[in-house]
Protein backbone atom coordinates (compact mmCIF):
# COMPACT_ATOMS: atom_id res chain seq x y z
CA UNK A 1 0.00 0.00 0.00
CA UNK A 2 2.61 2.45 1.03
CA UNK A 3 5.02 1.02 -1.56
CA UNK A 4 2.88 2.15 -4.45
CA UNK A 5 2.55 5.61 -3.00
CA UNK A 6 6.29 5.88 -2.60
CA UNK A 7 7.04 4.62 -6.11
CA UNK A 8 4.51 7.11 -7.45
CA UNK A 9 6.35 9.92 -5.71
CA UNK A 10 9.62 8.55 -7.06
CA UNK A 11 8.72 9.14 -10.70
CA UNK A 12 11.49 10.84 -12.62
CA UNK A 13 14.21 9.83 -10.20
CA UNK A 14 17.53 8.58 -11.40
CA UNK A 15 18.45 4.93 -11.80
CA UNK A 16 17.19 2.40 -9.28
CA UNK A 17 15.66 5.11 -7.11
CA UNK A 18 12.56 5.16 -9.20
CA UNK A 19 11.99 1.41 -9.40
CA UNK A 20 13.42 -0.36 -6.37
CA UNK A 21 11.48 0.27 -3.23
CA UNK A 22 14.39 0.11 -0.82
CA UNK A 23 16.29 2.76 -2.66
CA UNK A 24 13.20 4.74 -3.61
CA UNK A 25 12.02 4.97 -0.02
CA UNK A 26 15.17 6.81 1.00
CA UNK A 27 15.22 9.12 -1.97
CA UNK A 28 11.55 9.97 -1.60
CA UNK A 29 12.04 10.78 2.08
CA UNK A 30 14.88 13.08 1.15
CA UNK A 31 12.88 14.67 -1.64
CA UNK A 32 10.07 15.47 0.77
CA UNK A 33 12.55 17.03 3.17
CA UNK A 34 13.93 19.16 0.37
CA UNK A 35 10.41 20.14 -0.63
CA UNK A 36 9.64 21.27 2.93
CA UNK A 37 12.86 23.25 3.16
CA UNK A 38 12.53 24.79 -0.26
CA UNK A 39 8.92 25.92 0.10
CA UNK A 40 10.35 28.37 2.61
CA UNK A 41 13.48 29.07 0.59
CA UNK A 42 11.42 29.78 -2.54
CA UNK A 43 10.04 32.95 -1.01
CA UNK A 44 13.56 34.15 -0.22
CA UNK A 45 14.85 33.21 -3.65
CA UNK A 46 12.06 35.00 -5.46
CA UNK A 47 12.68 38.17 -3.52
CA UNK A 48 16.39 38.03 -4.29
CA UNK A 49 15.54 37.61 -7.97
CA UNK A 50 13.21 40.61 -7.94
CA UNK A 51 15.87 42.72 -6.29
CA UNK A 52 18.42 41.74 -8.93
CA UNK A 53 15.97 42.61 -11.68
CA UNK A 54 15.08 45.98 -10.15
CA UNK A 55 18.75 46.75 -9.65
CA UNK A 56 19.55 45.96 -13.27
CA UNK A 57 16.59 48.00 -14.48
CA UNK A 58 17.45 51.01 -12.40
CA UNK A 59 21.14 50.98 -13.24
CA UNK A 60 20.22 51.39 -16.90
CA UNK A 61 19.40 54.94 -15.88
CA UNK A 62 22.32 55.31 -13.53
CA UNK A 63 20.31 54.85 -10.34
CA UNK A 64 21.25 52.19 -7.85
CA UNK A 65 18.72 49.80 -6.31
CA UNK A 66 19.25 51.23 -2.84
CA UNK A 67 18.64 54.78 -4.06
CA UNK A 68 15.56 53.72 -5.97
CA UNK A 69 13.97 51.89 -3.04
CA UNK A 70 14.67 54.61 -0.51
CA UNK A 71 13.56 57.28 -2.98
CA UNK A 72 10.26 55.52 -3.66
CA UNK A 73 9.66 55.08 0.05
CA UNK A 74 10.29 58.78 0.61
CA UNK A 75 7.70 59.63 -2.02
CA UNK A 76 5.20 57.22 -0.50
CA UNK A 77 5.12 54.92 -3.52
CA UNK A 78 3.89 51.65 -2.10
CA UNK A 79 4.95 49.35 -4.92
CA UNK A 80 6.65 46.22 -3.65
CA UNK A 81 9.65 44.53 -5.16
CA UNK A 82 7.57 41.97 -6.97
CA UNK A 83 5.59 44.66 -8.78
CA UNK A 84 8.65 46.78 -9.50
CA UNK A 85 10.38 43.83 -11.14
CA UNK A 86 7.22 43.17 -13.17
CA UNK A 87 7.22 46.78 -14.34
CA UNK A 88 10.89 46.65 -15.22
CA UNK A 89 10.23 43.60 -17.33
CA UNK A 90 6.89 44.29 -18.99
CA UNK A 91 6.22 48.04 -18.66
CA UNK A 92 9.58 49.72 -19.30
CA UNK A 93 8.05 53.16 -19.80
CA UNK A 94 6.36 53.13 -16.41
CA UNK A 95 9.50 51.85 -14.78
CA UNK A 96 11.50 54.63 -16.39
CA UNK A 97 8.98 57.16 -15.06
CA UNK A 98 9.50 55.86 -11.53
CA UNK A 99 13.26 55.92 -11.83
CA UNK A 100 13.17 59.43 -13.29
CA UNK A 101 11.02 60.59 -10.41
CA UNK A 102 13.53 59.29 -7.90
CA UNK A 103 16.47 60.67 -9.88
CA UNK A 104 14.80 64.07 -10.05
CA UNK A 105 14.09 64.01 -6.32
CA UNK A 106 17.69 63.15 -5.59
CA UNK A 107 19.01 65.76 -7.96
CA UNK A 108 20.50 63.25 -10.36
CA UNK A 109 19.52 64.13 -13.91
CA UNK A 110 20.30 61.80 -16.78
CA UNK A 111 23.64 63.25 -17.92
CA UNK A 112 25.03 63.22 -14.38
CA UNK A 113 23.50 59.90 -13.36
CA UNK A 114 26.35 57.96 -14.94
CA UNK A 115 28.81 59.85 -12.76
CA UNK A 116 26.86 58.88 -9.61
CA UNK A 117 27.56 55.22 -10.30
CA UNK A 118 31.28 55.60 -10.63
Amino acid at each position, binding site marked *: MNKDKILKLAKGFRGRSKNCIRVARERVEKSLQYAFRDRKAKKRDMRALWIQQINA*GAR*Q*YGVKYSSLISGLAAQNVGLNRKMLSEL*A*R*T*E*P*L*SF*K*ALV*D*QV*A*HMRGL*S*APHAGAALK
Partner: protein
Amino acid sequence: MARQGVWQLQKLILNYCEFSGSSRGARVFVEKLWPEFTAGNPQLDATLHVHPGRHPNLTAQYLNGRVRTVGLRNEDPDEIMRQAILLRSSTGRKAALQVKTRQVSRNPSIQGPWTPAVQDALKQKQPLGA
Protein backbone atom coordinates in the same frame (compact mmCIF):
# COMPACT_ATOMS: atom_id res chain seq x y z
CA MET B 1 -29.18 25.36 0.05
CA ALA B 2 -31.28 23.99 -2.75
CA ARG B 3 -29.88 22.87 -6.08
CA GLN B 4 -32.35 22.88 -8.93
CA GLY B 5 -35.17 22.82 -6.45
CA VAL B 6 -33.79 20.03 -4.25
CA TRP B 7 -32.70 20.79 -0.72
CA GLN B 8 -29.22 19.51 0.01
CA LEU B 9 -29.49 19.30 3.76
CA GLN B 10 -31.68 16.37 4.63
CA LYS B 11 -31.30 15.86 8.33
CA LEU B 12 -30.16 18.03 11.20
CA ILE B 13 -29.61 16.60 14.65
CA LEU B 14 -28.91 18.77 17.66
CA ASN B 15 -27.15 16.73 20.32
CA TYR B 16 -26.97 18.30 23.73
CA CYS B 17 -26.81 17.49 27.42
CA GLU B 18 -29.39 18.55 29.97
CA PHE B 19 -27.02 19.21 32.84
CA SER B 20 -23.47 20.05 31.78
CA GLY B 21 -22.11 23.60 31.55
CA SER B 22 -20.93 23.42 27.97
CA SER B 23 -24.49 22.78 26.85
CA ARG B 24 -25.88 25.87 28.52
CA GLY B 25 -26.15 27.84 25.29
CA ALA B 26 -27.57 24.81 23.53
CA ARG B 27 -30.29 24.41 26.15
CA VAL B 28 -31.31 28.06 25.79
CA PHE B 29 -31.31 27.60 22.02
CA VAL B 30 -33.55 24.56 22.29
CA GLU B 31 -35.95 26.48 24.48
CA LYS B 32 -36.10 29.73 22.53
CA LEU B 33 -34.81 29.46 18.94
CA TRP B 34 -35.18 25.85 17.90
CA PRO B 35 -38.99 25.99 17.37
CA GLU B 36 -38.53 29.05 15.18
CA PHE B 37 -35.85 27.31 13.16
CA THR B 38 -37.85 24.11 12.70
CA ALA B 39 -41.00 26.02 11.77
CA GLY B 40 -39.11 27.98 9.15
CA ASN B 41 -37.64 24.81 7.61
CA PRO B 42 -40.42 22.25 7.10
CA GLN B 43 -38.38 20.47 4.43
CA LEU B 44 -35.76 19.58 7.00
CA ASP B 45 -35.84 16.52 9.22
CA ALA B 46 -34.71 18.35 12.35
CA THR B 47 -34.44 16.34 15.55
CA LEU B 48 -33.28 16.92 19.09
CA HIS B 49 -31.21 14.31 20.81
CA VAL B 50 -30.26 14.39 24.45
CA HIS B 51 -26.77 13.02 24.90
CA PRO B 52 -25.94 13.19 28.59
CA GLY B 53 -22.39 13.90 29.63
CA ARG B 54 -21.22 14.92 26.16
CA HIS B 55 -20.52 18.28 24.59
CA PRO B 56 -23.23 19.64 22.32
CA ASN B 57 -23.01 19.52 18.56
CA LEU B 58 -25.00 19.88 15.38
CA THR B 59 -24.84 16.93 13.02
CA ALA B 60 -25.90 17.58 9.44
CA GLN B 61 -26.56 14.89 6.86
CA TYR B 62 -26.48 15.92 3.23
CA LEU B 63 -28.00 14.54 0.09
CA ASN B 64 -24.64 13.41 -1.29
CA GLY B 65 -23.99 11.31 1.81
CA ARG B 66 -21.63 13.67 3.58
CA VAL B 67 -22.02 14.14 7.32
CA ARG B 68 -20.86 17.42 8.81
CA THR B 69 -20.54 17.99 12.53
CA VAL B 70 -20.20 21.37 14.17
CA GLY B 71 -19.14 21.49 17.82
CA LEU B 72 -21.16 23.85 19.99
CA ARG B 73 -19.23 23.66 23.22
CA ASN B 74 -19.82 26.81 25.25
CA GLU B 75 -21.45 28.65 22.35
CA ASP B 76 -24.14 31.31 22.66
CA PRO B 77 -27.62 30.53 21.35
CA ASP B 78 -27.18 33.18 18.64
CA GLU B 79 -24.01 31.51 17.46
CA ILE B 80 -25.76 28.13 17.39
CA MET B 81 -28.51 29.66 15.26
CA ARG B 82 -25.89 31.04 12.94
CA GLN B 83 -24.26 27.62 12.59
CA ALA B 84 -27.61 25.96 11.93
CA ILE B 85 -28.36 28.47 9.17
CA LEU B 86 -24.86 27.99 7.78
CA LEU B 87 -25.37 24.23 7.59
CA ARG B 88 -28.71 24.70 5.94
CA SER B 89 -27.16 27.02 3.35
CA SER B 90 -24.42 24.57 2.41
CA THR B 91 -24.25 21.64 0.09
CA GLY B 92 -22.41 18.53 1.18
CA ARG B 93 -19.53 19.28 -1.13
CA LYS B 94 -16.09 20.14 0.04
CA ALA B 95 -14.76 23.61 -0.68
CA ALA B 96 -15.19 23.64 -4.43
CA LEU B 97 -13.24 26.78 -5.12
CA GLN B 98 -9.62 26.81 -4.03
CA VAL B 99 -8.17 30.26 -3.64
CA LYS B 100 -5.51 30.64 -6.26
CA THR B 101 -3.68 33.92 -6.23
CA ARG B 102 -1.48 33.30 -9.22
CA GLN B 103 -2.50 35.48 -12.14
CA VAL B 104 -1.93 34.34 -15.68
CA SER B 105 -2.61 36.64 -18.59
CA ARG B 106 -2.53 36.45 -22.35
CA ASN B 107 -1.40 40.07 -22.40
CA PRO B 108 1.12 40.42 -19.62
CA SER B 109 2.62 43.52 -21.18
CA ILE B 110 0.74 46.64 -22.24
CA GLN B 111 3.65 48.90 -23.09
CA GLY B 112 5.59 46.12 -24.74
CA PRO B 113 8.11 43.93 -22.96
CA TRP B 114 11.62 45.09 -22.31
CA THR B 115 14.16 44.41 -25.07
CA PRO B 116 17.58 45.94 -25.66
CA ALA B 117 16.10 47.83 -28.63
CA VAL B 118 13.37 49.29 -26.43
CA GLN B 119 16.03 50.25 -23.93
CA ASP B 120 18.10 52.12 -26.51
CA ALA B 121 15.04 54.08 -27.56
CA LEU B 122 14.19 54.88 -23.94
CA LYS B 123 17.69 56.07 -23.17
CA GLN B 124 17.29 58.80 -25.78
CA LYS B 125 14.19 60.17 -24.01
CA GLN B 126 14.68 62.96 -21.55
CA PRO B 127 13.36 62.37 -18.04
CA LEU B 128 10.11 64.18 -17.26
CA GLY B 129 11.67 66.36 -14.58
CA ALA B 130 14.44 67.70 -16.78
